[in-house]
Structure formats: structure tokens, C-alpha cells
């Protein structure tokens, strides 16, 4: 027994199965976490190696090169890039997407193990570090304080960070820019020398005075009591009263030779939020935790924590990744609902019957809900990709039910009985329905097999749509006939009630459309060649339109985030940088009411934190993070604001380099996750000077090309260093060696941590060093006294000479060749245009032979993705042809149908042009989808025309009859899809920019190709059909059928 007759005969079973599916789907839906993108594990592994005291060139030669040589043979390695700076070498290994990173990490570890012995002494063991998306902070808070500022580190540690750490799913939490309490002992070197003391001795005395020691036990009577010596500093005041010497019988207290301050460590960073002193708290999630859930819990916990904090401490959310995700998801969900509404309206307008509309509409929730079941089982999330795939599916899942229901209704109108009409009506079209769904599946399923980042992004889309349309076929072959047999009768609806009036209205209107179409079609069939020539011209002219459409990787979207970096001249001291920062702060706060929080940070801060990996810090660098008001509450987009900010920053003469990054996509962009549009030119060459000149020329050329902002050269200018050159002879004379001299200088300039002062379970450093006024100039350095083993003091100036010299601050390499990157943020135009313009300029630059140029970042992604999408496009066309050829058992008919594909492209170009959208990954994916969608119309038309020809009608008549009869199903199934796209096009909410191009492509492509298909396909059919008919038609059949038709 067939599927449909079983389901019609067992309505209860059928109903129960679908109710079961619905319940499972709702359950899955409730369990599904929400996220922005599908889970993406960027295939990057970094290797950090510290080599203290080495400059960039040393690091490059002794560490980076040796490691790189061993990494060359790693499996699946895509690019090998490195950056050698003073003291550190960072090698970043980019693997192919989909590589098993655990295995890769092991391989990297082995490679490091092999090379380790060859590294110079003093190099620390390389650290292997897997970069994951969980390192991107989920939330960043700014904490501002007045009175409590000095003790804020401990308050935050105890009251904020500890409780937050206990929240489920929270990974690491960092404090950035918090001041650290320390006991500073600033000694006066002249007094020190006078009393014959050294910094090291003072440090020793402090350590000796700050001790708790068990001193044995005392037996007293019957008891045995432990003796303990409590010598630790009871409070910080004690420190200054410590006796350091008894010179000439006189007691010397520490306060006599030094100023002791219980205060903050030297400020080496500047942190402000809206101009107030602040600290940032950065919350990361555990790698398997869900961003939105973690953010929600952290937010809730923070509300509770706020009440326990001192009143002057204010906590604000600077960045919350979940807000944008939720907004985008909500936006997309409402789009989905509008699409649903439109589809139901179209169905109702065409059928004019409530019951039929209800039956067809039912296939929407059921098909979509199986999508949720798939997402749940595959461990996916509700994200913008899965949700938009549901939006796409909405317009397609009704098609099968429409075809089935239409045939059943036709049977009923012929006067059949409901049950039989349902069974046999379904049986007749079941093959056609399955075949047309197969054309959709062969387009979407290969999407799930795409490689690279595109594959990871679009796999869920391919799978969800495939599953939804498969379900829709099953629904159309079971539930639809079952419900039709129960709900539909061959009653003629009355024209008096509301639904009856709608029915007659819609039928009248459709009848008129039918008549108009029939006239057009008759004309077209009579003037075949003119129609074909016109069509050809339209297609060719649309190809020229392509010139006016830009290309990019992915549209950037307004996600309420903005960040910026301003670099002053290398070697600018923090105090100077702070002045600029304060000036900019006041400009930004005054000028842009759209900004909620301006978070400013300058200086090195805590260099060891993970945050330092993502953002470049330094005394001459100011980093800005802005929190914008939600998109709905501001008029200017982040892109407009960014453009204005660029002007503000440019006006400052001290600024050497800067960028403004709307959307804060630089970081994720560098991890290959798209978003943002960056032009990146890589210049390879081992000679620093040559490549620098080329970089400068390219930067200049980019400056002259419209639309390039934030042009940056990745290699910083050479920086000045003060080098102390030791005189070995003199050093030996005094009995000193390099290590003792270096340590002595370090202790006096940077300071020596003598001991730790304990209070309330917290430890604070006690730091001894020269008072600031004695370490400000080169003379001060020369005046530093170094104790010799003979107990004498010798001035540093006697041992060394001071020299200034220049060194490259960072050396970047890619695939073992030195490289400079010139990058720019493209806005107001598209990357493709900029690239073309730059390529015109490059030949004029006289580039030396050993320097080569390549493109990276967005361009690299774009080229890779476009290549695989074009492959996918070809593959889809071939597969669609295969499906159709076997369905029609013909080589020619599928070919006729495929004429609708080029016009889908024409439609895409026109729509992209009208809506000012670009050709990017998303609109290309939309175009690929179109192949499966547009041939459906052709299939419906050609199939029915074949039927008419087989039933004995003349070719022209068959074509016109089929056209008239199939006009409604074609328009109806196309309209459901087209209208389902409109909410996505008009939506302006968060994240809408990302998906608009796809909706535009489908909208334009399908609209245009439907209109063309309706006229062109029948026309072409008549040309190819003549021969076929001559061959196949037999006289008897003709006579017989004509007899039948006559009567």
C-alpha cells in the first residue's frame, strides 16, 4: 500500500505522528541555545617564545627561523606567519578549515621538541597556544571609582571577580588597568653613597625585618607550647622606621635616606571611561559554553554584585556580545513571522478558501520544526544562518502541498469523492512533487559539503533547507491528502459570506490575469524569433550591468560597536600620550551624543594578560572602545561616525598612525571570520629598505584611490634605543661582570622587589629603587653607583658609554619570507574596485625583482570563497540537469528549462544594482539557491505542456493551454518565495545588512526569471517541440483523441 493511501485510510495514525514530530520539535526548540554564527573553531595555533634581552633581529634569526623551518612539514598547514619583536617571537600557524586541531597541536609540539635543543641558552620553552573564539570576551565592564580607586584591585578581586568566576560557563576574568598598591621606597643615591649603602643591602635589610618564623617550642610544666616569632610588618608605617645602618655609631633610619610611600605602583597605563578613572573587567567564557547564556547569567550576577560595592564604584557594561546576537536573532525571527504571514496570504488569495489555506499552511510549521530537531541533534544553535535558512525554506515548503492540494481540488471539482480524490489526486502528482523537490535538494545539499570558512558557515543552511523541504514532501504526500479528505468537499462556496466574496474576487482577478497572459503568450508563440532575440539582448545587457556592481567578501553590519587605535611617535612617553588621549576623550564625548561609553586605554598595562595578544599596547598607543546607543536610538550609523572620527583624529599633528574600526571586526577578521572589509596588500622581500619603500608607495597609491580609510603599514618605523656599551677591560679591573652590572642597573632604574607586605590576606610588593628625580637623564644613568666586590662603589659612567641606535621594532614573516602589510579599511566603495584600481598603479611603481606582492585578508577570503561558490554553481547546474533529464527521460527538455537560469542571473544583477548591494558571499549563495528554485517553474510548465502534447493537442495549442493552466501554480509558488524575501530586504534592524544581499538576489532573480520563464520557455519549447511531435505522433492516436475532444 502506498504512503498516501495509508495515511488517508489511517487519519489518526497520521495525525499522531505529526503531533509527535511537533512536540519533539518544540522540545528541541526550547533546548536550543542562541548564538550569532554557527560554532566556528578558527584553525589557528600560535607558538610564543620569549627570549629576554634580544632585539627583533636576534629573535628572528635565532628563534623564529629555526622554528619555522621545522613547521614547514605540518599536515594541512595553510600559512605560516610570524612576528619577531623585542624579547618575543610569535608564530601563527593557519591550518585548513576543518583540520583536527588536537592532532595539529600534537604535531606542533613534536616539531617544537625537535628544534628546542638548537635554540640559544636563555630562551624560555616555547608556549603552544590554541586560539579559540572563546577568547573573545563575552562581556567587558568598565568600573569607575573616586575614593575607592586606590584599593579597587582588591575590591574587584574579592567582590566581583570571585563571585563571577563561580557563574556557570565563565572562563577567565581579567582586570585591565587596575592600579596596584605597593610600598615604594625611593632612595636618594647621594645619601646612599654617603652612608656606604646599596639598593641591594636595603632590600636585604627589609627582607630580614619582614619575617614570621617558628622558633622551636617551650616546655612549661605539663604543656608544650610552640614559640613563634612575629616579625612581619604590622602596618606599612613600620617600614620607614627600620634601621638600615649604624654609620659612625649613629642610627640611620630608612626614612633618612629614602621616602617611603604606601601608594600605587608606577602608573604605566591610563584607563578612563567617559574621562573618569576606570578599570576594565573582561569576562571570557569556557570554550563550550554558550555566549548568550553566559552573558545573561553574568549580567544577572553583576546586578546583585553592584549592591555590595561601595557607593562610589560604578559598573557599566562596555561591551556585551549577546546584545547584538539577541537583537539580530529577534529581528530575524520577526522577519520569519512576516514571511509566514505573506505566504499564508498569498495562498489564501489564490485559493480563496480557508480550509485549503489552512491545510497548506500547516506544512510550514511542521517542516520548519523538523529543522529545529536537526539543529538540536547536530548540536547546532539558533543563529543567523540557521534562522535565515528557515526564512528561505518558508517559501518553498508550501510548494509541494500546493501542487498536491491543487490536483485533489481538481479531482473534487470533477465530482469525485473526497477520500478517493485525495488518494488518487496525490498519487498522480507524487512523482512530479518528489522530482521538483529533488532539484532543490541537489542544490542545497552540496552546500553542506563546501570547504573552508564558507563551508562552515553554510553547512547548517544546506542541511536545514534540505531537511525542511524533505519534510515538506512527506507532509504533502501524507498529511495534506489526509486533511483534504476530511476537510475539503466539492461544495461550491456561496458568494454572499466574507470568504465567499474573497473567493469570487480572487478568482475573477486571476481569471483576468489568465486572459492577459494567454494573449501575450499567443503573440510570443507566433513571433518566436523576435522573443528569443529580445531575451538574448536583455541577458547580454544585464551582463554589462555587472560592471556597476561592486564585489566584497561580506557586508559589514552595524553592531553598535566601534573601536579605534591612535599611535603617536614611537618612544613618546605615557604622560604625553595621556594628554592626547584626554583631548580626544573630550572631543568624542562632546561631539557624539550617540556614544554611551568612551573607554580609553593607553600604556602597556599588564603585558602578560591575554588581552595583550589581541590588542597592541604601548606607551605611545591609545586604544579606544566605544559603546554606542542601540541602532534604533541613533541617526548616524557607526560607519558615518567612524568617518567623522577619522577627521577628528587626523586633525591632531602628533598622531602618526591610527585606525577607526566600525563594528570592531579587525580582531575577528584577522581570524578569518569575515565581516568588515579590509584591503590588505602583502609585500614580500628580505630587504627592509626595499620593502619599506614599496609599502610606502602602495600606501600612497591607496591614499589616492577613493574609499580607502585607515591606511596602515604594519612595520613600525625604526625605534631609538639607548644602548649601554660596556668596557670589558675596566669591568675586569673592578672585578665586575656583565650580569652584575645589568642587575645593578635594573635594580636602580626599574626597582627591586625586596619583600612582600601582607595585609588582610593580600600581598603587596615593597619596591626599592632610586627616586625618580635621579633617573631622568643620561647623566643620571652614568651616575649610578655600582658596588664592586672590593666593597667600593664605581660609577656606571666609568664602565660604559651610552649610544643611541635604531632597530626595527617588529619583523613580520609569512611562509618564511619577510613581509610588510599595507592595509586599509574600505568604506563607501567595494574591495573589488579598490583592488582593480591598485593593480593599475602597481606596474608604475618600479618594484624590485626580489620583492613580490600578494593580497590578503578579505581579498584572500573573497577569492577563496568565490572560487568555491562558482564551483558550487556549476555543480548545482549539472545536478539539476541530471535530475530533470531523468525525470523527463529526455535530453532536450531539461535544456529548455535551464534557459530560465541565465535570466535568474539577470534578475540578480538588476536587483543588486537597484538596491545598491554588492556581489558577496551571501548574494552568491542566494544565486546558487536560485538555480534550484527557478527551474521549478520551468518544470511545472514543460511537464504540463508535454502532457497536453501527449493528449494530442497541436503544439501551439498545447503550449498556450498549458501556460494558461499552469500560470496560477507558477505565480503562486514563486510569489510565496518572493514575498518571503521581502521582510528580509526591508528590515533595518541589527544584523539585517548581513542577509539583505541574499534576499535581494533571490527576490530579483526569481521575479525576473519567473516573468521570463512564463514567456520564453513556452516559446523555446515550440522550436524544439516541432521535430519531436512530427516524429512521435501517430495518426491513429491523433484521430482518436480528436474524436474525443470533438464530443
Amino acid at each position, binding site marked *: 500500500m502506498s504512503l498516501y493511501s495509508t495515511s488517508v485510510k489511517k487519519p489518526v495514525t497520521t495525525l499522531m505522528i505529526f503531533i509527535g514530530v511537533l512536540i519533539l520539535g518544540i522540545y528541541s526548540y526550547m533546548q536550543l541555545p542562541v548564538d550569532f554564527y554557527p560554532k566556528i573553531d578558527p584553525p589557528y595555533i600560535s607558538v610564543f617564545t620569549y627570549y629576554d634581552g634580544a632585539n627583533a633581529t636576534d629573535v628572528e634569526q635565532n628563534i623564529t627561523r629555526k622554528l619555522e623551518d621545522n613547521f614547514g612539514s605540518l599536515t594541512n598547514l595553510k600559512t605560516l606567519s610570524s612576528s619577531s619583536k623585542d624579547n618575543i617571537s610569535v608564530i601563527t600557524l593557519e591550518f585548513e578549515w576543518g583540520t583536527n586541531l588536537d592532532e595539529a597541536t600534537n604535531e606542533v609540539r613534536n616539531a617544537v621538541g625537535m628544534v628546542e635543543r638548537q635554540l640559544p641558552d636563555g630562551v624560555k620553552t616555547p608556549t603552544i597556544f590554541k586560539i579559540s573564539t572563546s577568547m573573545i570576551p563575552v562581556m567587558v565592564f568598565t568600573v569607575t571609582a573616586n575614593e575607592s580607586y586606590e584599593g579597587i584591585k582588591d575590591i574587584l578581586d574579592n567582590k566581583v571577580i570571585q563571585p563571577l568566576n563561580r557563574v556557570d560557563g565563565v572562563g577567565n576574568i581579567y582586570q585591565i588597568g587596575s592600579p596596584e598598591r605597593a610600598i615604594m621606597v625611593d632612595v636618594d643615591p647621594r645619601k646612599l653613597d654617603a652612608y656606604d649603602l646599596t639598593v641591594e643591602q636595603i632590600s636585604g635589610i627589609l627582607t630580614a625585618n619582614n619575617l614570621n618564623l617558628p622558633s622551636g617550642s617551650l616546655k612549661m610544666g605539663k604543656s608544650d607550647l610552640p614559640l613563634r616569632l612575629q616579625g612581619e610588618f604590622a602596618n606599612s608605617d613600620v617600614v620607614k622606621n627600620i634601621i638600615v645602618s649604624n654609620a659612625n655609631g649613629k642610627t640611620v633610619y630608612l626614612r633618612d635616606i629614602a621616602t617611603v610611600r604606601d601608594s600605587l605602583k608606577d602608573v604605566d597605563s591610563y584607563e578612563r571611561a567617559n574621562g573618569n578613572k576606570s578599570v576594565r573587567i573582561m569576562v571570557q567564557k569556557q570554550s563550550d559554553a554558550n555566549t548568550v547564556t553566559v552573558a545573561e547569567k553574568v549580567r544577572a550576577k553583576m546586578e546583585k554584585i553592584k549592591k555590595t560595592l561601595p557607593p562610589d564604584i560604578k559598573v557599566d557594561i562596555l561591551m556585551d556580545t549577546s546584545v547584538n546576537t539577541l537583537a539580530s536573532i529577534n529581528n530575524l525571527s520577526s522577519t520569519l513571522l512576516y514571511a509566514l504571514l505573506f505566504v499564508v496570504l498569498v495562498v489564501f488569495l489564490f485559493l480563496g478558501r480557508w480550509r485549503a489555506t489552512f491545510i497548506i499552511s500547516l506544512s510550514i510549521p511542521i517542516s520548519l520544526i523538523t529543522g529545529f530537531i536537526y539543529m538540536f541533534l547536530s548540536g547546532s544553535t539558533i543563529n543567523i544562518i540557521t534562522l535565515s535558512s528557515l526564512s528561505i525554506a518558508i517559501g518553498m515548503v508550501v510548494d509541494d502541498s500546493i501542487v498536491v492540494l491543487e490536483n485533489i481540488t481538481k479531482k473534487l471539482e*470533477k*465530482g*469525485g*469523492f473526497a*477520500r478517493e480524490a485525495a*488518494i*488518487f489526486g496525490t498519487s498522480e502528482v507524487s512523482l512530479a512533487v518528489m522530482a521538483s523537490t529533488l532539484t532543490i535538494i541537489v542544490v542545497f545539499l552540496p552546500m553542506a559539503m563546501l570547504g573552508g570558512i564558507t563551508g562552515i558557515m553554510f553547512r547548517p543552511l544546506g542541511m536545514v533547507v534540505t531537511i525542511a523541504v524533505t519534510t515538506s514532501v512527506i507532509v504533502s504526500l501524507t498529511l495534506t491528502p489526509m486533511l483534504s479528505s476530511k476537510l475539503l468537499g466539492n461544495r461550491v462556496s456561496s458568494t454572499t459570506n466574507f470568504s465567499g466574496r474573497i473567493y469570487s474576487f480572487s478568482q475573477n482577478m486571476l481569471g483576468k490575469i489568465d486572459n492577459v497572459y494567454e494573449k501575450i503568450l499567443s503573440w510570443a508563440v507566433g513571433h518566436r524569433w523576435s522573443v528569443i532575440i529580445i531575451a538574448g539582448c536583455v541577458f547580454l545587457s544585464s551582463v554589462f550591468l555587472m560592471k556597476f556592481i561592486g564585489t566584497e567578501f561580506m557586508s559589514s553590519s552595524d553592531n553598535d560597536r566601534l573601536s579605534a587605535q591612535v599611535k603617536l611617535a614611537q618612544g613618546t612617553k605615557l604622560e604625553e600620550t595621556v594628554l592626547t588621549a584626554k583631548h580626544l576623550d573630550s572631543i568624542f564625548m562632546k561631539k557624539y551624543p550617540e556614544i554611551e561609553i568612551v573607554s580609553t586605554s593607553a600604556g602597556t598595562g599588564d603585558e602578560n594578560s591575554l588581552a595583550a595578544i589581541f590588542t597592541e599596547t604601548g606607551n605611545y598607543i591609545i586604544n579606544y572602545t566605544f559603546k554606542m546607543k542601540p541602532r534604533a536610538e541613533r541617526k548616524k550609523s557607526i560607519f558615518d561616525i567612524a568617518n567623522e572620527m577619522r577627521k577628528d583624529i587626523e586633525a591632531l599633528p602628533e598622531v602618526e598612525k591610527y585606525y577607526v574600526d566600525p563594528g570592531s571586526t579587525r580582531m575577528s577578521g584577522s581570524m578569518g571570520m569575515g565581516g568588515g572589509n579590509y584591503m590588505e596588500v602583502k609585500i614580500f622581500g628580505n630587504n627592509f629598505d626595499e620593502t619599506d619603500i614599496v609599502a610606502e608607495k602602495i600606501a600612497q597609491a591607496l591614499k589616492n584611490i577613493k574609499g580607502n580609510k585607515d591606511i596602515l603599514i604594519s612595520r613600525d618605523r625604526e625605534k631609538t634605543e639607548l644602548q649601554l656599551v660596556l668596557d670589558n677591560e675596566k669591568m675586569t679591573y673592578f672585578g665586575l661582570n656583565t650580569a652584575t652590572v645589568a642587575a645593578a642597573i635594573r635594580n636602580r632604574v626599574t626597582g627591586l622587589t625586596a619583600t612582600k607586605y601582607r595585609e588582610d590576606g593580600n600581598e603587596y610588593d615593597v619596591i626599592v629603587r632610586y627616586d625618580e628625580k635621579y633617573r631622568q637623564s643620561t647623566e643620571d644613568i652614568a651616575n649610578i653607583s655600582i658596588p664592586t666586590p672590593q666593597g667600593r662603589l664605581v660609577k656606571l659612567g666609568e664602565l660604559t658609554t651610552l649610544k643611541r641606535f635604531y632597530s626595527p621594532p617588529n619583523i613580520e614573516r609569512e611562509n618564511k619570507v619577510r613581509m610588510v602589510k599595507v592595509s586599509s579599511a574600505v568604506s563607501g566603495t567595494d574591495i573589488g574596485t579598490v583592488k582593480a584600481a591598485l593593480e593599475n598603479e602597481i606596474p608604475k611603481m618600479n618594484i624590485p625583482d626580489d620583492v613580490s606582492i600578494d593580497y590578503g585578508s578579505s581579498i584572500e577570503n573573497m577569492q577563496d570563497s568565490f572560487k568555491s561558490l562558482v564551483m558550487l554553481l556549476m555543480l548545482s547546474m549539472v545536478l539539476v540537469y541530471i535530475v530533470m533529464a531523468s525525470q523527463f527521460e529526455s535530453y532536450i527538455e531539461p535544456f529548455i528549462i535551464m534557459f530560465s537560469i541565465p535570466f535568474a542571473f539577470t534578475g540578480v544583477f538588476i536587483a543588486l544594482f537597484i538596491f545598491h548591494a554588492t556581489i558577496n558571499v551571501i548574494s552568491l549563495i542566494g544565486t546558487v539557491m536560485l538555480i534550484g528554485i527557478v527551474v521549478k517553474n520551468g518544470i511545472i510548465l514543460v511537464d504540463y505542456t508535454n*502532457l497536453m502534447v501527449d493528449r494530442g493537442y497541436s503544439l501551439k495549442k498545447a503550449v498556450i493551454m498549458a501556460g494558461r493552466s499552469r500560470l496560477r501554480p507558477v505565480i503562486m509558488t514563486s510569489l510565496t518565495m518572493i514575498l518571503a524575501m521581502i521582510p528580509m530586504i526591508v528590515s533595518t534592524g541589527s544584523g539585517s545588512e548581513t542577509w539583505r544581499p541574499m534576499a535581494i538576489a533571490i527576490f530579483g532573480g526569481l521575479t525576473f526569471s519567473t516573468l521570463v520563464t512564463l514567456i520564453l520557455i513556452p516559446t523555446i519549447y515550440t522550436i524544439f517541440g516541432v521535430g519531436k511531435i512530427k516524429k512521435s505522433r501517430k495518426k491513429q492516436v491523433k484521430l482518436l483523441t480528436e474524436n*474525443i475532444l470533438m464530443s
Partner: protein
Amino acid sequence: MKAVFVVYNQSLGRHVREILNQLTIRGFTRWTDIMGTGSGKGLPHEGTHTWPDLNNANLVIVEDEKVDSLLSKLQSLDKEVEKEGLRAFVWDIEKMI
């Protein structure tokens, strides 16, 4: 005894069976999924994509007196759904075992 050959669009199967039951006619032979075309207005029933309908046929052997009531019931069914197609032909049974 008469033999009544009822050939009908298979979508009428349930109704033909009901008629036989109503008349308490037990004995019959049925062929399903068979092809045919009517001599007059009928469209071909071929089970193909072009002509998707198919017929069933019952060969019913009944007592002479039941023939008329059977034919009239079949005729009214045919009138109800004229486009589906139903025909009945009667001939004599000469011998039986």
C-alpha cells in the same frame, strides 16, 4: 445466472464494493489497475503521466433477479460522478461447476 462485468475508475472502488454489499452479492472476481478507454466520451485510463487514471473491473456472477437492481445502483453512481467513468456489461452464464 448472469455475469455482470463492471469496469470502473479505480477511485470508485469503495462505492462499487458498497453496492455489492448492499445487494448481498458475495461472489465476484476483481482485476485491479487495468487500462481502458471508453468508446464514447471517455478519456483513456492508462495509468501514465499523460492519462493518470486506472480502472478496476469486477466480474460478478448473480442471480437473474438481482441484475436490474445492481445495474440501477451502478447507473446512479455513474450519474453522480459522470467524469470518473463506470460501465457494466451483462451476459449469460451457460454452465457452472
